[in-house]
């Protein structure tokens, strides 16, 4: 894998910020876009732009073809059984909201229970809370150890005959932990409980095979995997998606409409009300092809080296606490300089050209776990370099001195 070559594909990376070369370490929030993805968007609007499905004309057919090719690409990328299991959403948040609503309507009765891990992003907590309030359900929390690993043994204890679903993230956006979702799914399935995997932070780092994992649902966001914003996916096993009622009503999701009776479209359109983000879907198709051209295995291997290097270098500085030391981690490092506020550290790094995220990272329960108000988070992608990590570390040393 030639990183310098890859960097050339991302025009944004070559700019200077406050006169310093940009070091973009906010990849867990969103990834940058390669030129081919940018081109695909312009190309769509200059060549094919037309609303998809049911158009009789040439452009509409071309646009529909791209949209449906994107669906097929996602199907292959995560190895789903059928294209009908791939629902386009505007992101993982909408995917989880769709599922939480529909699942609640279909299966949840008062007193039923859901299990959610303590390290979830708010987007995998709040939709379930809303549903639980509506349906009178109870949320049980699967805790994690201080090193950032889930207490998997607890799962068996939390499961009871009223447990209806387990919701867990594949990769923690704050701690970097790669959870052993395969084993969690096995445990849940032994009790006939379906599992949602939030793959928003996994899709860009590791190969996902939904059939091998045997997860029942999976959510992902396009913009985290080099596609544009506003496109995401809800994967669901076909029999579940068949049973679940639609989340939103509108055009494209119906078979027939009358004021007496409306019938719904076949999967996956039943869950795609209104005009979909077909340009976004096209960009996702291009982005996934781009990732395939480099190879997720190569990306994973390289990012692991970045993570290892960054962890070692940051630890060497001293007086810095890293949150999340799981054995299996994705390229995310959350830390605080002892005695300094994360916001101050982030502001100083910014002026050195280093883009990191500070705060709670939409995971307040994790902050509560460590009794902190936030962290500085550096998250790496395939286009980052070891030299950039050196720049980050020089920045940390500088901030440490200034904030002493």
């Amino acid at each position, binding site marked *: 894998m030639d990183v310098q070559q890859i960097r050339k594909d991302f025009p944004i990376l070559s700019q200077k910020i406050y006169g310093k070369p940009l070091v973009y370490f906010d990849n867990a929030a969103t990834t940058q876009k390669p030129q081919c993805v940018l081109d695909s968007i312009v190309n769509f609007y200059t060549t094919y732009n037309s609303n998809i499905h049911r158009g009789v004309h040439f452009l509409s057919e071309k646009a529909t073809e791209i949209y449906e090719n994107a669906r097929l690409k996602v199907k292959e990328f995560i190895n789903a059984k059928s294209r009908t299991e791939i629902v386009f959403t505007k992101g993982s948040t909408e995917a989880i909201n769709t599922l939480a609503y529909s699942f609640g309507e279909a299966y949840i009765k008062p007193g039923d229970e859901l299990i959610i891990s303590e390290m979830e992003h708010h987007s995998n907590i709040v939709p379930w809370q809303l549903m639980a309030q509506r349906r009178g359900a109870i949320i049980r929390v699967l805790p994690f150890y201080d090193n950032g690993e889930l207490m998997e043994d607890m799962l068996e204890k939390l499961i009871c005959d009223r447990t209806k679903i387990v919701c867990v993230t594949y990769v923690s956006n704050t701690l970097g932990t790669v959870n052993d979702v395969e084993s969690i799914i096995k445990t849940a399935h032994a009790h006939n409980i379906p599992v949602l995997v939030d793959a928003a932070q996994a899709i860009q780092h590791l190969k996902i095979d939904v059939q091998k994992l045997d997860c029942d649902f999976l959510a992902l966001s396009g913009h985290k995997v080099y596609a544009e914003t506003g496109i995401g996916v809800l994967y669901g096993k076909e029999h579940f998606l068949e049973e679940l009622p639609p989340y939103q009503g509108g055009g494209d999701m119906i078979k027939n409409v009358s004021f007496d009776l409306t019938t719904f479209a076949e999967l996956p359109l039943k869950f795609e009300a209104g005009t979909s983000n077909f340009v976004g879907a096209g960009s996702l198709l291009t982005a996934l092809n781009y990732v395939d051209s480099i190879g997720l295995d190569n990306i994973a291997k390289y990012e692991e080296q970045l993570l290892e290097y960054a962890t070692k270098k940051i630890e060497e500085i001293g007086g810095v606490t890293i949150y999340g030391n799981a054995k299996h981690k994705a390229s995310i490092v959350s830390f605080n300089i002892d005695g300094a*506020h994360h*916001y*101050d550290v982030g502001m100083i790094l910014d002026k*050195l050209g280093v883009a990191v995220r500070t705060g709670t990272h939409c995971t307040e329960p994790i902050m509560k776990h460590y009794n902190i108000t936030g962290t500085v988070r550096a998250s790496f992608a395939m286009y980052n370099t070891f030299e950039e990590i050196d720049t980050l570390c020089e920045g940390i040393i500088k901030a440490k001195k200034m904030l002493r």
Partner: protein
Amino acid sequence: MTINEIQDQIIEEFSVYDEWLDKYEYLIELGNSLDTIEENKKTPDNIIQGCQSRVWLDAVLEDDNTVTFRADSDAIITKGIIALLIRVFNHQTPQDIVSAELYFVDEIGLSANLSPTRANGLLAMIKQIRYYALAFSALNKK
């Protein structure tokens, strides 16, 4: 000094800094020397919760009809900016505070810190300073 005279003075002080980190060094120094709020005044009533940093603010109307503000933050650069805001508004009359136009933050290049999306508590703090002043000037009229 009037509010605007103090603002101009601050702009003058900051004009010597070309480097961002020098500006931050100065803010950190100001933050460290800020006469902070007493711990028992750091109540839930006085907290302005931001996702990034937290700010506490307390205000007292003195007998001479000027306002004394006390504030604190858990982030030191935020606290430095607070020190500047307090320097501008402290010992001014509620009427002057209400009608003041705040321009120095822009001028010294820190306006990003007052963006509503920053969630560092500063914008809410300025709003709160004005609320206090409004409430005090209403008291005056009675």
